[in-house]
C-alpha cells in the first residue's frame, strides 16, 4: 500500500507538470466537444486525434487521449439531458430521465448530478484501477502463449455474450474482424494474405481508418441524411444547484453505478455503453417508485452517468495490466502508445512506471478539470450545437480525411475508411454491431501468434490449452457462456440481460 502511494506521488509529480496539465486539459475539452457532437463518439474522436499525438511523448499522448475518452462521457450527458440527443451511445439511457427533468425545469440539476456522479465514479474507479492493475500484471507475467490465446478468445465471446444482441451475429462480426486482422503479412512466415496486388495492404488494415469508418463516417452519413435543426436551451447557473432531496436520492445510484461500471469496464465489451444500460435497469428495479422512471427520476441520471465513467476507467485495467484491449477504444489507445515504441503487456507497469503512474495521476487531475469545466462552462459548450449539422458534417468529414491520411501518409487508408463507412452504414441499418469487428481485427495478430506459438511449444498438441489451469479455466468460461446463449436461443426465454434492460431500447 505504501509502495502504491509512493508511486502515485511520483505519478502526480509527472501529471502536475504544466505541459501534462495542458495535455490533460486539451484532451478534456476536445473530449467534451466530441461527446456532445452527434457523429463523433469517443472512438472516432480518439482515432482522429491519434496523428496529432505522434509528436508527443507516450505519456503525454496517453494522458491526452484518456482525457478525450472520459471527457466524451461528460459531454455526451450534456446533450442527452438538455436536448435528448445522445452525443454518444453511452448516454442513451441518460436521455430518458435527464430530458424529462429538463422539461420539468430541472435540467440544470440533472447536469449537476450527472457531473458529480461522473466525478465520484471516475475518481473511485481510478482508485480501483490503481489497486488492481499492478497485482494483475504481476500475475499475468507468468502467462504463456496458451493463456493469451484463451484470454483473447474469451474476450471475444464475453463481448458477444454481454451485448444482449444475437450471439451468431456478434460471433459473425468477431470472425469477420479476426479475418480483417489477418489481411497482410502472416505474423510468423511473412506470407501475404488477402492483399490482392496492393502493396500498402501488406502491413494490414490500420485500426484508425477502420475505426473512423465504422464508427465515425457511418454515423455521419446516417445523421446527415436526416439532419434537422435543434433548438438549444441554455440552463441558468442558479438552476444548476440540485435540491437536497435530489442529492439524497442520487447517493445510492452513484455508489452502485461506480462499482458496477468499474466491474463491467474490466470485462471485454463496449463497457461504457453496457454499464449505463445495466445501471439504469438496476436502479429502476431497486426503486420503491419505479413508475417515476422515464418521467424525470434523478436516479435514472445519476446511476448510468456514474456507471459509464467508471467503466471508462475499468476498461484500462486489462489494457494496462495485460496489454490486452477490452474493447475498441482501449485498442486504439494501445495502438497510440505502440507507435511510440512502448510494448504493452504485463511488464509495462514495472518497466515504464512513469507512463502508468503518470497516467493514473492524470486521471485524477482530469476528473477535477472536467468537473470545473462542465458545470460552470456548460453554457459555452452547448453553443457548439447551434452550428447547423449541414455545416458541421462537412467539417467533421474533412477532419476524418486529414486524420486518417496523417497516420500512415497513405491514400489507401482513406479508401479503407470509405469502405468501412459504407459497411458500417449497412450494419447499422440491418442490426449488426461494429464493436466485435473492430476488437477482433485488433487482437487477430496477437491471437494468431500466440495460438501458433502455443502449438509450437507443445509440439503440436492441442492439449496445451486445457493442460494449463488458467487457460483451461478461461476456455471453460467461454464454453459456459456459449452454452447459456444456446439455451436462451432455444428456449427463447428472457434471461437476465433483458430483465436488466440490457436489451437495446435506444
Amino acid at each position, binding site marked *: 500500500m505504501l509502495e502504491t502511494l509512493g508511486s502515485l506521488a511520483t505519478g502526480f509529480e509527472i501529471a502536475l507538470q504544466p505541459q501534462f496539465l495542458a495535455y490533460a486539459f486539451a484532451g478534456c475539452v476536445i473530449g467534451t466537444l466530441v461527446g456532445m457532437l452527434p457523429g463523433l463518439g469517443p472512438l472516432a474522436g480518439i482515432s482522429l486525434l491519434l496523428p496529432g499525438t505522434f509528436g508527443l511523448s507516450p505519456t503525454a499522448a496517453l494522458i491526452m487521449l484518456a482525457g478525450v475518452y472520459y471527457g466524451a462521457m461528460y459531454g455526451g450527458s450534456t446533450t442527452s439531458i438538455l436536448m435528448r440527443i445522445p452525443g454518444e451511445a453511452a448516454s442513451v439511457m441518460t436521455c430518458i430521465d435527464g430530458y424529462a427533468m429538463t422539461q420539468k425545469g430541472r435540467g440544470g440539476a440533472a447536469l449537476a448530478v450527472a457531473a458529480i456522479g461522473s466525478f465520484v465514479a471516475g475518481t473511485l474507479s481510478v482508485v480501483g484501477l490503481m489497486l488492481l492493475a499492478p497485482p494483475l500484471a504481476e500475475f499475468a507475467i507468468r502467462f504463456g502463449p496458451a493463456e493469451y490465446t484463451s484470454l483473447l478468445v474469451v474476450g471475444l465471446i464475453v463481448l458477444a455474450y454481454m451485448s444482449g444482441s444475437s450471439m451468431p451475429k456478434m460471433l459473425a462480426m468477431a470472425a469477420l474482424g479476426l*479475418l480483417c486482422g489477418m489481411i497482410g503479412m502472416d505474423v510468423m512466415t511473412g*506470407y501475404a494474405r488477402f492483399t490482392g496486388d496492393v502493396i500498402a495492404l501488406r502491413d494490414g488494415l490500420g485500426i484508425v481508418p477502420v475505426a473512423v469508418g465504422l464508427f465515425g463516417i457511418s454515423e455521419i452519413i446516417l445523421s446527415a*441524411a436526416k439532419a434537422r435543426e435543434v433548438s438549444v436551451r441554455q440552463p441558468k447557473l442558479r438552476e444548476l444547484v440540485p435540491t437536497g432531496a435530489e442529492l439524497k436520492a442520487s447517493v445510492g445510484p452513484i455508489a452502485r453505478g461506480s462499482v458496477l461500471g468499474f466491474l463491467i469496464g474490466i470485462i471485454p465489451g463496449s463497457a461504457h455503453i453496457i454499464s449505463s444500460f445495466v445501471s439504469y435497469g438496476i436502479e429502476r428495479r431497486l426503486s420503491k417508485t419505479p413508475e417515476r422512471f422515464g418521467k424525470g427520476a434523478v436516479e435514472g441520471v445519476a446511476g448510468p452517468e456514474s456507471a459509464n465513467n467508471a467503466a471508462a476507467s475499468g476498461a484500462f485495467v486489462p489494457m494496462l495490466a495485460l496489454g490486452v484491449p477490452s474493447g475498441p477504444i482501449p485498442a486504439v489507445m494501445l495502438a497510440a502508445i505502440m507507435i511510440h515504441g512502448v510494448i504493452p503487456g504485463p511488464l509495462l507497469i514495472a518497466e515504464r512506471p512513469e507512463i502508468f503512474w503518470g497516467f493514473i495521476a492524470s486521471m485524477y487531475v482530469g476528473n477535477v478539470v472536467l468537473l470545473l469545466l462542465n458545470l460552470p462552462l456548460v453554457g459555452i459548450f452547448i453553443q457548439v450545437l447551434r452550428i447547423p449539422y449541414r455545416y458541421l458534417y462537412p467539417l467533421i468529414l*474533412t477532419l476524418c480525411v486529414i486524420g486518417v491520411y496523417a497516420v500512415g501518409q497513405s491514400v489507401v487508408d482513406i479508401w479503407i475508411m470509405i469502405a468501412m463507412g459504407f459497411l458500417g452504414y449497412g450494419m447499422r441499418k440491418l442490426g449488426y454491431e461494429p464493436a466485435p469487428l473492430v476488437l477482433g481485427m485488433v487482437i487477430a495478430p496477437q491471437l494468431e501468434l500466440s495460438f501458433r506459438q502455443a502449438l509450437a511449444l507443445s509440439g503440436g498438441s492441442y492439449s496445451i490449452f486445457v493442460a494449463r489451469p488458467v487457460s483451461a479455466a478461461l476456455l471453460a468460461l467461454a464454453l459456459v457462456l456459449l452454452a447459456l446463449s444456446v439455451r436462451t436461443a432455444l428456449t427463447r426465454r428472457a434471461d437476465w440481460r433483458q430483465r436488466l434492460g440490457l436489451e437495446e431500447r435506444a
Partner: protein
Amino acid sequence: MERAPSAAPGTPPSGGGGLRDDYVTGAALALAGILIAWQSWHYPMGSLAEPGPGYLPFALGIALGVFGALIVAAGGRSPAFRWERFGDGLKALAILAGLAFAALALERLGYRITIAVLLFYYLGVLERRPWITVLVLMMVVSLGSHYLFARLLRVPLPIGVFGF
C-alpha cells in the same frame, strides 16, 4: 452513437413468409465465409500440429459460413427486408463520393486544393448553402487546417502537381 438499433426483440413479427433482414445478411455472411475459406485453401495450410498461414483464415472462413447459416436459420423473426429503409442511401453515397474524390485527389492536387473542392462539394452542391458562406469556409478551412496541421502539429500533408 455506436450502437445500432437492433432488429431483434420488440419488433413485431410481420407474419407470413417473404424476405427478411437476417435471411439477406446471413446469406451474405455465409457466402463471404465460403469465399474466404476457398481463398485461404490456396495458401500454405501447414498441418493441424503446425498450422501455416492459411490455417486460421480457413477455419475462420468456415466459422463465418456457419454463423451466417445460423443467422439465416434463426432469421424468421427479423424484420421484413425492405429497400425503402435505404431511402437515404443516395445521400449517403453522395457523401461517400466526396470522400472518394478526396482519396483520388489528395496526392495529385495537394492538400489545400483538395480540401477546398471537397468543402465546395459538400456545402455548395449537396447542402446548397449561400455561395459567399461556402467560399469563405472553403478558404478558411483549407488554409487554416493546413496551417494548424502542417505548421503547428508538423503533420506532413501532401503537395500536389501545382507545388503546394
